[in-house]
């Protein structure tokens, strides 16, 4: 097992302070060593649990709910918005 904290932070879009990198990296070593214990179990003929009650394909009639979910446009609650749109730093 090789644990690359820098790579994981990039994948998770999560900046970590230098302090956090050292601390979390060390703790991950202990935690991953602990979860490794699953490898001792033989699960060759075991199906993974997709849903604990085996529920699948939950359908409903294709009719819209007429009652609005929110009492106002939630875009207004976003940290930055402009003319009813979310506003983000320039992309291109």
């Amino acid at each position, binding site marked *: 097992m090789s644990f690359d904290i820098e790579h994981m932070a990039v*994948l998770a879009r*999560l900046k970590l302070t230098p302090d956090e990198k050292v601390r979390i990296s060390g703790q991950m070593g202990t935690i991953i060593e602990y979860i490794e*214990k*699953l490898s001792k179990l033989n699960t060759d003929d075991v199906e993974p649990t997709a849903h604990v009650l085996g529920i699948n394909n939950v359908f409903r009639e294709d009719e819209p709910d007429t009652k609005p979910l*929110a009492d106002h446009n939630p875009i207004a609650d976003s940290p930055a918005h402009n003319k009813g749109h979310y506003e983000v*730093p320039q992309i291109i």
Partner: protein
Amino acid sequence: MHRTTITQARELLRQKKLSSVQLTEAVFARIDQVEDRVQAFVHLMREKALQQAKDADVRIAAGEEAPLLGIPIALKDLICTQGSRTTCSSKILDQFVSPYNATVTEKLNQAGAVIVGKTNMDEFAMGSSNENSHHHPTMNPWSLDRVPGGSSGGSSAAVSAHECVAALGSDTGGSIRQPASFCGVTGLKPTYGRVSRFGLVAFASSLDQIGPLTKTVADAATLLNVIGGKDPRDSTSADVALPDFTQALQKDVKGMKLGIPKEYFTGGINPAVEKAVQESIRTLESLGMQTVEVSLPHLDYAVATYYIIACAEASTNLSRYDGVKYGYRTEKSDSLVSMYENTREEGFGEEVKRRIILGTFVLSTGYYDAYYLKAQKVRTLIKQDFENALTQCDVIASPVTPYPAFKLGEKLDDPLQMYLADIYTISANLAGIPAMSIPCGFAEGLPVGLQLMGKHFDEARLITVGHQFQKATDFHTKEAPL
């Protein structure tokens, strides 16, 4: 007055010996008296609650009956309440105002409940002590230098300290039962799918379930009647009949079989906790239950399985907090990606970051099969353990936690030790079965819980056993020395 249960309050309100306004004022007077020491709440809804109480009194005067009409209830701060903050005890949602109600909030409103306020929790329900709250820690009413448990520690402390008549929490790996046990109250995690998760801020979607924290099992039955049922807005809520759980209070336990899983009584269990649990099993035998030894052989793998699955789901669920749609956004960014990264760095606490990193790792290329898929297979084995054991008995009894409430700060530096505190509770979430914690004694002067686990959708039998136990004992009536 504030010490009342739901059952008692309903009777007093019905007989007009008490008004909802009086009861609500008494609860707020109690909050004013103890909250600076307990710190169970993140925010209070005093004005709105008093208005709801006035409305309830009008409805009661008009002869209306509803199961929670005029009863003050507290909600864990990850259950959406329209027009008020739902922070998940996180900086990233600190100013988030719910644009709609959770289904359980709607159901409480319909049942006439008075919402007192929102209770503290570990950030995004990740933790077993309430110390991971962005706002402040919550103290255990039984001993103010100890944790109330987590993650629904605010709800359990508020019920224990009589700062509300009852509360709702959520349970992903024990987050209702462990704090209920630590604070000496009753906590019920229903079957996965019994209660709608719509409007519950997601941590691990295949494990999360909302449930009641109450002073008695009878009150838990009343609350489950209100919040349970299929919800078209949550496709994972189960389309099964919702029985009247209060009928289970009338049933007898004679002849019922109580399974004792031998694996739960070995290793690091505190002797005083074990003694209290064993004595409560003797009590259930004296009530006519027959005990049988059962085996749950994969217990030792449950914590590892749980932390892989829960963190994997959390890492994807929490990707939505990116500073765009709601909540906190960083001031420091020169690009879209740096805005995401800085927002998440500043907005999340360290435990949340740790779990996002672990979840990202177990789902990443090259590790998915070894960790995530493997854990889903072991989950099947754990589920089968319970299915097998529950063919030999009606209800399984075990400790809730290996030890009573620990001191603030005691386990903060060692995440793995904190995770291992959930050893007895997380299997029920992995198997999706209902499980309950009821007060069953004391260890070092601190409350101890007995866990009862049952078959899918068989909460009624847990309620029968729990209620008969509470009729025969008085642990649930003991008061925290506040």
